[in-house]
């Protein structure tokens, strides 16, 4: 049984509820820069990152068109295919803006996804913590590990 995988724990409950109610096949919750906070349904991490980058780019493009048209707010975007549909929606939580990329099949619909996306947004807004304080994250001598890692990446 597929389960949600989350990087930010507070996204788990809203995401699980959304997937259950909407019948979505795949779902990503991410920042506008394409960094993933939670996902459902993806089998491989590589597919998640590519989908996130593309979804963020599509949403950014639409937002830019909206801005050119005079700051109209496009909150959701929908592409309909033969067997699958793509839904992209944006929302604001205390920590900033988030995007959701949803892929749904013939057993769902854009109306259903939109309906439960609104609930997902409410759930994320309620669950989201305030902005974290910055903390130093790396040891002072991280360069050695970085160099070792890059060297191994490039086979040196």
């Amino acid at each position, binding site marked *: 049984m597929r389960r949600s995988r989350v990087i930010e724990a507070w996204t788990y409950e809203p995401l699980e509820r959304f997937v259950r109610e909407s019948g979505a096949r795949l779902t990503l919750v991410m920042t506008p820069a394409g960094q993933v906070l939670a996902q459902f349904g993806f089998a491989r991490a590589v597919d998640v990152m590519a989908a996130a980058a593309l979804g963020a780019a599509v949403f950014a*493009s639409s937002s830019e068109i909206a801005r050119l048209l005079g700051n109209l707010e496009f909150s959701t975007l929908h592409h309909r295919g033969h067997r699958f549909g793509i839904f992209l929606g944006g929302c604001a939580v205390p920590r900033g803006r988030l995007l959701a990329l949803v892929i749904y099949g013939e057993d769902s619909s854009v109306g259903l996804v939109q309906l439960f996306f609104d609930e997902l947004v409410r759930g994320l807004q309620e669950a989201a913590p305030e902005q974290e304080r*910055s903390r130093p994250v790396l040891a002072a001598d991280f360069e050695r590990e970085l160099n070792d890692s*890059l060297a191994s*990446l*490039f086979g040196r």
Partner: protein
Amino acid sequence: MSLVNFTTREITCKIVYYGPGRSGKTASLQYVYGRVPQDRRGRMVSLATETERTLFFDFLPLDLGSISGFTTRFHLYTVPGQLYYDSTRKLVLQGADGVVFVADSQVRQLDENIESLQGLQANLVAMGSDMRSMPMVFQYNKQDLPSELILTPTELDDALNFWALASHSSDALRGVGVFETLRAISERVLRKLSEEAPA
């Protein structure tokens, strides 16, 4: 902006390869893609025109493994270099943690390099940043061409590198200097991350 998760101990950073058209941005990513083991990288996404010029961006996720106990991933992006793609360059630049400016070392491309650098500064300012605060390095590509056709790294520094940032010569098609540039920008990005003091 870097995504840092203290619970799962994961760091994700975004690095953008910027520069004029055909300077070697995509070639740099393609070299990285070709050299890095499959389990340490993701699929390379390239949104390009029929003539293989970058239309929107190239994207390559890298897994750097554990650094200071944090699983560290870098997302590498390129921007389209042609002049009329400035809107999409701005979009790709959003959320960047570091920039590699890939300059075309050819003498006849100097004006394009300058124009692209000015565009980068303008786009960074529009985002609330600038080249002094954004981790950045220069990659002077095509240094393999005949000397009469190119500017030396010193000449390129004089023309472009006003902030005395790190610069590296490169031949992206053969991978010369690509690794060194990536290491340099990675260090700067992670250094900045580790220096962010508690509020």
